[in-house]
């Protein structure tokens, strides 16, 4: 565990000094800050637009951070041969991969924390600034609604799943292929329902069977998306949160176990 924490800290340190990660976080914060201006275009819905845009920015920029870092963590260490030095120390290969993943998760948590703080600051300012029109129209949902944290938490779990997939793919494929596959998985994971019901629009039995099969194999990432519900003040129960988080943990495990097995057996050339 000590070794895993040491590696995770190093990954976090490297990410914090990475300009690309900074840029993604700044973009998200910038979107949150600019959201009130977009809100003015939709009278009566401005706070909702701020929340929508801020959460979407968290999700998108978090995704960028996870894919950008996730596909490079193991693949880059192997390509650049920095892994040679580390694996000659008293660590096991699975500890190395787990350390890398924990570092990725910690980076994601840090990025989401910064973006969430920015979102609440903007919402707090909007609530305080009486000049914002339409505040009354969204009552009784509070402007700086704590329920938004539920959406952020599930964004974290969702992106942690995507990060595990990226890491898994990067243990045996090139960074480019891993990036394309991870993005494909992210998109397909949001359309599990559509894949299952593809027979309504496509006649080919083969295609519909394949799509249905894929929908059961791919993680159902849409289940982690409660942004619309919290923005509209609909309840997201604790039970739903726990079950969804547990399914996320299962998906993470399902991606990490093959990653560990592949990396342990692999020749690092």
């Amino acid at each position, binding site marked *: 565990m000590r070794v895993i924490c040491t590696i995770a800290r190093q990954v976090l*340190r*490297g990410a914090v000094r990475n300009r690309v990660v900074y840029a993604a976080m700044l973009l998200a914060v910038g979107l949150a800050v600019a959201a009130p201006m977009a809100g003015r275009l939709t009278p009566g819905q401005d706070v909702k637009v701020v929340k929508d845009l801020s959460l979407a920015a968290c999700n998108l920029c978090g995704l960028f951070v996870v894919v950008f870092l996730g596909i490079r963590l193991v693949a880059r260490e192997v390509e650049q041969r920095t892994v040679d*030095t*580390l694996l*000659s120390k008293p660590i096991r290969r699975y500890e190395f991969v787990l350390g890398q993943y924990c570092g990725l998760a910690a980076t994601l948590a840090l990025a989401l924390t910064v973006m969430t703080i920015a979102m609440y600051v903007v919402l707090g300012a909007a609530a305080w600034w009486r000049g914002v029109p339409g505040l009354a129209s969204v009552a009784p949902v509070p402007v700086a609604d704590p329920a938004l944290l539920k959406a952020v938490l599930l964004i974290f779990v969702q992106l942690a799943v995507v990060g595990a997939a990226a890491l898994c793919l990067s243990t045996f494929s090139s960074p480019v292929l891993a990036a394309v596959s991870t993005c494909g998985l992210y998109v397909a994971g949001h359309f599990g329902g559509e894949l299952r019901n593809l027979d309504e629009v496509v006649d080919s039995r083969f295609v519909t069977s394949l799509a249905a099969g894929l929908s059961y194999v791919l993680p159902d990432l849409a289940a982690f998306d409660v942004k619309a519900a919290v923005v509209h003040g609909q309840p997201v129960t604790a039970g739903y949160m726990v079950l969804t988080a547990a399914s996320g943990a299962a998906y993470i495990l399902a991606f990490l176990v093959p990653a560990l097995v592949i990396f342990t057996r692999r*020749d*690092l050339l």
Partner: protein
Amino acid sequence: MSAVRLRELSKTFHTGFWRTRVHRALDAVSLDVPRGAVLGYLGPNGAGKTTTLRLLMQLVHPTSGGAEILGRPVGDVGVRRRIGFLPEAVRFHDTCTAEEFLEYVGGLFGYTVAERRRRAALGLDRVGIGADRRRRLRTYSRGMLQRVGIAQALLNDPEVVFLDEPMTGLDPLGRREVRDLVLALREEGRTVFFSSHILNDAEAVCSHVAILNRGRLVASGRVGDLDLRVRSWELVAAGPGESVQAVGGAAARWVTRIADGRYALELPVEPSPEALAAELAQRGIQIVSLHPRRETLEDYFLRRVAEAAAAAISDDEAECA
């Protein structure tokens, strides 16, 4: 007990898109490196030196055979607490400083924060990086990175040190420092296993050598026990110059005056120099010394590699026939 033991160690790579091409990088190599030895693991490019080191570090897995370090199988994580490794063309996380990187490595050994800092500072001072320890590694030159690599390899005070081409990228001063460092490690009784194709460096520091060619071990042993062939004789004689020239001039390859009344003659291996020495003594010329001039390690290496290549060609021809 051997510090490092290879037993019929082999590694085959399958290359090409369909992985149908077979490349035997290491072919049943057996080798014992005694404790306290400095082994020069020599061979031309592509001989299998780096593959051997990567097998010892478990970065690649053997096709057959095995290896032990300090009596433990190479897969044993515990034994890695007692070894140090400098990879070929070493690269590090370039966003951190040398100090941070060494402290990170210390963390992997489980040292306390204070101990990590102490060892990092000592290691960087030892390789002359002291003043630049807080600069990002991406700003370091190739030679400085090599020094940091050596510092991380020695951070845990290892009993066995593996250095893969440690002189690569270093200027003459840096090479001298690495040579001195290896000699210091030898003085401290540590075992050093270093691969190189720079034979002068190996000759200067090694107690043992192993020569590898096309994945096969072609020679190994103590430097003093190698069958270095006599290439010529060096005879030093004292007497009148005309007499020395008259007697030895015809037989010697060259004659040169090295001091007043003293001359050095290089004589071929055949005929035997004893007859000429006797003739010089009869003319009243004093024989100061008579020494064989043997092959250098480089000559020996080139001869053994050429012999191995010739043997491989004749084997191939025999197979074709």
